[in-house]
Structures are given as C-alpha cells and as structure tokens.
C-alpha cells in the first residue's frame, strides 16, 4: 500500500491555523514545512519507536513518513486533522519497515496462551492479582516490567496490540494496514492480550490455593 493512502477515517474540525498551515505547505513555504516537522516529529518518533524498538529504524521511518507526506500534500483532502493524517502515515511506514526486517527468533504464541485440561478447565486456575492496575502504574519498576512483557510478544501479535490498544485504531483500519481480515485482527488481539496477561501473571498473582 502507498504510505500516502493511509488516510484516516475520522474527520475532525479544522482550526483556522491548520487551514493556513496547509495552504502554506501547498504553496511550498519553507517555514511551514519546518513548523510541521517540529510540531509532529517528536510524537511520530515515539510511535515508530513503539513498533520498531530500535531508534535508528524509528528515525529512518519518521523521515520516510515525512517524505511520503510531503509528496501527497496536494492529494490530502483534509478529511482529518494533519496530526491524525501524519499518525497514520508513520504507522504505515513503521509496518513496512517491520515487514522488510529480518525475522528474529521469538516465543511461540501458543506457549504464552492459557493451558486447559481435557475437561476444559484451566490447568492453572486463575488467581487474583495483588494490586489493581492503577496501583501498579504508580510504580516505575512495574511499568518497566509491563513494557518488557509487551516486547516479548511475537511480532505479529505485538503489532496488533499496539495498533488497537495503544494507537487506538479500529479493527477495520488495523486490518487494512496489515492486509489481513478483520476477523484475523480480532483473533490476534485477543491472543496478544491473553499472552500478555500470561506473562504478567507470575509477577502479579497473589498467594493462596
């Protein structure tokens, strides 16, 4: 898919300032380009880093995303905010980079999913976690643990988790970007969440029977 086709669905109200910026960009105004890059590259870098986990690749992707955006400014219909449009473009560029990278060995998703007995009961019955999510998020060490568990998810599942739960794309958008069916997105998302729960569980579960 062309990166420039990553046009978002959610139309939002344009401010006068944005409309003026777009006009200036289309006129080739250097200062307008600089402002666009300064205003958005930080967030785009964070998004790319989230997918790629490598700062060099993330920087390359942000640069590629801006080039794609500059190229398609004239065809940008303004059906969404500039920030939303750039967000989709950088996600698309990050996904393309992921596809081009050499695969590295990773955990099998099956190993991370809950196990069941023949009668359908869980092999290891679930136990309450010691703290609520709100309490856990107060603690820097726990936040680091959650991030490292997300990074351990197999790439195909981690990518869907990031697209849906973190970048908040809807199922249809995620399916289009990944070139898979909406049902496949739903299945991967559920498995990713189950696997993440399974990775967190030994750290958070309480004692007892």
């Amino acid at each position, binding site marked *: 898919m062309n990166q420039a086709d990553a046009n978002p669905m959610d139309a939002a109200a344009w401010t006068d300032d944005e409309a003026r910026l777009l006009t200036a960009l289309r006129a080739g105004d250097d200062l307008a380009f600089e402002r666009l890059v300064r205003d958005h*590259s930080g967030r785009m870098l964070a998004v790319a880093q989230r997918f790629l986990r490598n700062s060099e690749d993330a920087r390359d992707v942000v640069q590629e995303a801006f*080039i794609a955006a500059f190229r398609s400014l004239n065809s940008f219909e303004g059906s969404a905010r500039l920030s939303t449009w750039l967000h989709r473009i950088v996600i698309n560029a990050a996904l393309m980079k992921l596809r081009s990278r050499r695969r590295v060995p990773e955990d099998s998703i099956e190993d991370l999913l809950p196990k069941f007995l023949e009668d*359908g009961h869980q092999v290891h019955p679930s136990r309450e976690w010691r703290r609520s*999510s709100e309490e856990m998020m107060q603690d820097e060490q726990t936040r680091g643990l959650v991030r490292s568990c997300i990074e351990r998810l197999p790439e195909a599942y981690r990518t869907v988790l990031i697209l849906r739960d973190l970048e908040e794309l809807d199922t249809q958008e995620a399916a289009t970007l990944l070139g898979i069916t909406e049902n496949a997105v739903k299945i991967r998302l559920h498995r990713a969440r189950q696997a993440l729960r399974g990775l967190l569980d030994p750290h958070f579960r309480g004692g007892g029977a």
Partner: protein
Amino acid sequence: MTCREFIEFLMEYLLSEVDREKFDAHLAVCPSCVTYLKTYQETVKVGKAVFADPNETLPEEPPEDLIKAILAARSKRS
C-alpha cells in the same frame, strides 16, 4: 460452557458480540474465570497506561539533527 470456551470467546463477550447469558451462567459458577476476566481487563488497562504515560515517551523536543535531515531531504527533492 467450559473455561476453555469462556476464555476463547472472552473478547466477543466483552464486546457483547455473543449471547452473554451463557457466559454469565458460567461466571456464576466459576471463580477462576471471574478472576481470569478481571485480570484480562487489568492487562488491557496496564498495557494502555504504560504507553500513555508521558514519562515513558520521548521528550517533547525532537532531535534537532533529525529535523534537519528531514528538511534537507525535502530540499533535495524540490
């Protein structure tokens, strides 16, 4: 309904895409699945929260050399 079925279709249950009665009936007799459901929801929350935290993302100011590289790449094209 078994625990396996409950957990397999849990997301559809949460999205109300299935007949919830069967799931609710299972929850009424299965404390382990009640806990699984709760910890699954906590997982989604902590996953979202860890990246929504501004301290975990990159600083507001993007690297100057990256900005310059992007603008230089544009100049080369035009």
